[in-house]
């Protein structure tokens, strides 16, 4: 294959670390499209994005998992901060935080193997949300790793459909001892 000359001038591939960010934004129409547009046009790689209203209905909290190196992360935070509707942005990479994801997994299940699936779900502290003649829906909550591990195991039975919330993150109430104050 011929390599065109511009390939040489392309920037070096960047390390693809995942960085959790949490942002407080105004709860107004158009905010989400403005932010997702920002990520797309600046070429930021977003692994997951989840939004929900806070206790104060004037604000929403956005959890963003950014893929990239430190410099990219730095730009994401700065560009987000520049948006008028963004109140604050916090990078949780080096902060003690809780991270959760919810996944609904519709698995093929017959009368023979149904109990086996339920047992598996139990081990992962997942719930069975629905049972049908040919399927069960497993509801799993936890870290992305845990949810993915359960998915892998359920794959054996045949996964029909899957829906994931994306990761939500929140800083822990108590800081670790070695953590720098803000």
């Amino acid at each position, binding site marked *: 294959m011929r390599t065109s000359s511009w390939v040489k001038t392309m920037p070096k591939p960047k390390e693809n670390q995942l960085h959790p960010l949490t942002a407080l934004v105004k709860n107004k129409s158009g905010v989400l499209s*403005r932010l997702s547009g920002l990520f797309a*046009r600046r070429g930021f790689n977003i692994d997951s994005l989840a939004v929900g209203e806070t206790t104060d209905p004037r604000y929403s909290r956005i959890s963003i998992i950014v893929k990239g190196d430190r410099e990219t992360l730095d*730009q994401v935070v*700065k*560009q987000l*901060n*520049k948006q*008028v509707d963004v109140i604050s942005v916090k990078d949780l990479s080096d902060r003690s935080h809780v991270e959760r994801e919810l996944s609904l997994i519709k698995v093929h299940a017959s009368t023979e193997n149904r109990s086996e699936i339920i047992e598996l779900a139990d081990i992962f502290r997942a719930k069975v949300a629905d049972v049908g003649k040919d399927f069960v829906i497993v509801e799993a909550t936890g870290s992305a790793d845990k949810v993915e591990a359960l998915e892998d195991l359920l794959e054996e039975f045949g996964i029909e459909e899957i829906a994931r919330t994306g990761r939500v993150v929140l800083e822990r109430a108590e800081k670790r001892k070695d953590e720098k104050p803000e």
Partner: protein
Amino acid sequence: MANSKNQDELNTATKKRPKKEEDELTEGEKMTGARAVVRGLEEQGVEVIFGIIGGAIMPIYDELGKSDKIRHITTTHEQGAIHAADAYARVTGKPGVVFATSGPGAANLMTGVANAYMDSSPVISFTGQVATPLIGQDSFQEVDVRGMSDPITKHNYLVMNPEDVPETIRESFHLAQSGRPGPIVVDLPKDVQMGEFIWEEDSQDEKEFEGYEVDPEVNEQDVEDLADNLLLAERPVVLIGGGIAQAGAETELMNVVEELELPVASSLMGLGCVNSRDPHFIGMVGMHGSGPANKAIAKSDLLLAVGTRLDDRITGNVEDFAPNAEIAHVDIDPAEMGKIVQPDFPVIGDAKEVLTYLHEQVEGRGRTEEEWWNKIESWFEKYSIDAKKDDSVLKPQEVVRVLSELTDNNETIVTTGVGQHQMWAAQHYEFTHPNQLITSGGLGTMGFGFPAAIGSQVAAPDKPVVAVTGDGSFQMNIQELTTAVREKIPITVVILRNGSLGMVRQWQQLFFDNRLVETLIDEGTPSLAKVTEAYGGKGISVAEEEGLRPALQDALNYDRGPSVVECFVAEEENVFPMVPAGAANENFILGEDDA
């Protein structure tokens, strides 16, 4: 009737709006959204609006007709209106205001909005929108203006209630001008314009925004570190951008420059912030920058960049940009730090504040070595950009030089389009003060220059205004001759007519083996002088150097409307020095033979 359904829904929409209880009307004045727009603009001290009327913005124009405080200038195309408002904003430092209707009216503004965004110009556009019940139905002249303008505005609004109008206008003006300025778009559905509410006289004070930092406080330690390193540098260079003009920091800049005897280079947007005749000025930097400026930055050991975002036309190949220098970057926008170049000394803040403090820190502590200046002087001798004299043809560089001479009054405003003529104007006009050059820097919008001249003249009626443009650029907004004639706007347009889209042709000659694909446009282009006469302006053609001076003088003297001097210049002339795309800035070429 195609329209009757719309009209019915519109009426229902207006009726549906819940009316406030009568007993609540204790204070304030009952008015419509449209009246509130005009009243809000009056409150902000707006004197001029550029725009074009249309169906969805009629209620606002109806109210505007009742105002005797605001002048409205109807342009021929919405792009003309927004470029004029953009220039008006740059010249006055106050927001430029634009009106346009929904759909095509708003869509026609978008190039100008993007232009203002790239050059951080405070332009506020008010667009009519179809009535709220019709939004999302692909209604007649409906387009999602808020969505469309998302990537090219500092902020935008779709106003859904008439009572939100006053606050939205105050916010828009605050956002447009504060911090790093930028364009705002306010989309106003027709039923919001017609709906009634009570205007309450409150919260007129400057709006505070949660999470919106207007003026970041300068970290003094950052400036002190910068000062210490600046004093240690043996080969320091200052690189300025449009931020100096935005901050009004030219005096503070010169205080530092003169104190330390620093050489100053400028981006296109920064031209004029340092008088080009000042001995410290070493020229424009970047793709068509001067030899001394590009060499000095390449060899410097400390580069102080102030109010510039160091875009690709400045840096060339980023890896090779100021390769031996520690870089200090001063900008009001934190997101510019490390976006393109990772600075060793980032300083976030207003240029004026930072330079004032920097001056205090360096005062009486040293000056730049003679040796470094000798080196720079030697580059001036080596890389002269004086075009070879040739009496048989009119050289475009010569046209700019003569124009510069004839308008040497420290007052003339020069606007340009984009391309070869823009670079010749940047290289050969002697700019002496900030905001003297009004040009499309970031977006590179052909057709900017002529409407920008209209806006500049309206902004500064006592100053002479000259648009330097090309035959390609001028024809992109030639229709604004109507506006200039109707409004009797005395501006002079100098067209460097070379029968081609010259900058692209230059690239074809240098990098595409001279295959001139679709860049020769002379066939079909009429006499632009005669066209001007047909519109009712003054048109002059000149093809020889002999006639140049009187032609320009004649045009500059004309004060009853627009004058156009069509200069038939040497068609094969190209812009040098030039840094080929992707190359290091110091590897510029000085001519075709050099390529």
